[in-house]
């Protein structure tokens, strides 16, 4: 269970306030107009942005002051999710041991994870020698190995084509289904939100609203969201 208690996050001139709880295992889309603070919210949960006020709790434990790597969080950014000078296997292996001193057992787990995302045979490639979709798969393999209970996605598949993006989201949905992880994903595309997220958080006008069923939110959008969706 993730709790944000009276949290205020500052990003330059604007702030985002959040006060809600998310049940473990939920799949949540974060939607809202551009520049409203979706990324700011996610970054605060991941620990890249300090809270001005309030607390963040995971299963009752206060993680507000924890360093990003010490939180129960795995995160995929918009870009830069792989180190270009390391091989696919090394990149994935970082999820197990950040210093890459892997035992042979751990190496076997890395191979298994890469096979699970469909990258068997490409372990020794560098990310530059992979397609965009394959790079996303490699990053997802690492997330699997990190095995954190909370997965945050800041539109890591935005640069992919529609079909490939849908494929990646299905893979994400399958992975969190297997591990029981909680998923929070920023989305610009209502269809993506409908596709895998049963709940949605609306971030608009400086407030991150509590989660509500995605279908309700998208079928009866409040004015700010309606203007953004352009759904007349």
């Amino acid at each position, binding site marked *: 269970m993730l709790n944000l208690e009276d949290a205020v996050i500052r990003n330059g001139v604007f702030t985002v306030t959040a006060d809600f709880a998310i049940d473990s295992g939920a799949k949540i889309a974060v939607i809202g107009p551009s520049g409203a603070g979706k990324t700011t919210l996610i970054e605060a949960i991941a620990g890249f942005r300090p809270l001005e006020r309030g607390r963040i709790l995971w299963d009752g434990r206060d993680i507000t*002051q924890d*360093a990003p790597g010490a939180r129960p969080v795995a995160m995929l950014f918009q870009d830069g999710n792989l*180190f270009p000078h390391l091989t696919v296997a090394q990149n994935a292996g970082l999820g197990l041991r950040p*210093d890459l001193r892997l035992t042979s057992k751990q190496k076997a787990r890395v191979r298994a994870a890469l096979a699970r995302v469909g990258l068997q045979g490409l372990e020794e490639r*560098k990310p530059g020698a992979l397609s965009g979709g394959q790079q996303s798969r490699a990053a997802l393999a690492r997330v699997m190995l990190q095995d954190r209970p909370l997965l945050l996605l800041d539109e890591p598949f935005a640069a992919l084509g529609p079909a490939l993006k849908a494929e990646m989201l299905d893979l994400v949905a399958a992975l969190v289904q297997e591990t029981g992880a909680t998923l929070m994903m920023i989305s610009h595309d209502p269809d993506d939100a409908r596709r895998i997220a049963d709940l949605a958080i609306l971030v608009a006008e400086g407030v991150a609203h509590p989660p509500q069923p995605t279908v309700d939110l998208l079928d009866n959008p409040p004015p700010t969201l309606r203007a953004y969706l352009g759904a007349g």
Partner: protein
Amino acid sequence: MADRAQPVSGAPGIGAALCVATLILGALAAVIWRAEPGSGLDPSDWQALRFTLIQAALSAGLSVALAVPVARALARRRFVGRGALITLLGAPFILPVIVAVLGLLAVFGRAGWVSQALGALGLEPLRIYGLHGVVLAHVFFNLPLATRLILQGWQEIPGERFRLAAQLGAGPGAIWRLLERPMLARTAPGALAVVFAICLTSFAVALTLGGGPRATTVELAIYQAFRFDFDLGRAALLSGIQIVLTALAAGLALRAAPGSGFGAGLDRSVQRWDANTPALRLLDGAAITVAALFLLLPLAAIAMAGLPGLTELPASVFHAARTSVLIALLSTGVLLLLAVPMAASIAMARRAAWIEIAGLLGLAVSPLVIGTGLFIVIYPLADPRALALPVTALVNAVMALPFALRILVPRARAVIGDFGRLGLGLNMGGGPFLRLVLLPRMRAQIGFTAGLAAALSMGDLGVIALFADQDMATLPLQIYRLMGAYRMEAAAGAALLLLGLSMLAFWIFDRGGRWHAEP
């Protein structure tokens, strides 16, 4: 606090900056403490001060004035070998001064090529020693630098402006007034200040081509007070003058500096629609040809004069070469141990200004001033001559530090900006992030820095002249001694060896850094 989380620790860089600041400020303090005002400056000191300022002003003025037509020609012409020529313009930075001096002597000296040609016409040979020799050598070193700085200004004029000017039917004159003159008004003062600052602290050129009461720089006067009179108080007093001079000039140069001159992208030439008249083509062609000859002829002369001597080099030369290689490796190692952590700290910290200032301190002091200060500190404790090697390596490293940081900091910023969050998110910790991400991704820049440092140290003729006794020499110092003994053939051979070693050191490190490096 989460907002201060950093992928690697800033502490080693802060420690390195403290070491550098302590070393430089300590040496300065020693100089000031030891300086004996006595009866103030005597006439020869005033003469040295005046000569220093005059030669630096002349060198800066000539370098920049000549650089303008060369830079303009390079900016608006495309020709085969343009990229190679621009690369060559960067070469004097790592060219040992003593090698260039020997090359200039072979071309412009009393028995040089130009004098021989003049003799064939029944004219007097050139006289290179004195003010004009010093200025000639400084222009040789700084014309390329000034050209690169000004060329950068030209390249920074957006191509669209030239397109617009062409659309409006502006000819070369109008373009000069509209685009080029305003750009020069911005870049030329910076280039002047940089060259002036460099020439103020010039030692090896003044040592070899100057000298005598009428052509002594302050830097050379420090050396003479030291070597000939062993008058530490006077050397310290002169150092005090030099500190004021360099600090003022460095401040001026930093304020007006247009950029590093290492800038990438200089091999791009802007599409131009003006300046296609035959006369202007001829003018640009002449500017490029003369500049290229001025740079290449002395190097060719060294190669030709040195080759015969290469087979009969005295053993002392090889001994000195071994010393030089040792110092260069030591100095490169020290530099990297200082510069890489400092670059990481500067790249991460929000209030890193003082670390950057510590890194720039090397620009504000001359090698002989630090040398004098260190001598004063060491003298009561140990025999400074026994420490000549480590001291020379250390001073060389500190002198190369400002350049190293200019190369390393932008890359460190980029790597930490691109991957710092990912490293933090993966909980990599400082050690693994350094080993797996920061160092591998900075490898090309570290190699380039190491190459520059090794070549600079290999060719340096400065502090070693203060500290070395008769039994010890680096290769540049040994060449100077051979010149002093009029063994010009051996000196030329040794110079060719030094040139080869410097270039080889640069090439190995630079190449090693880029070998299989990811972009």
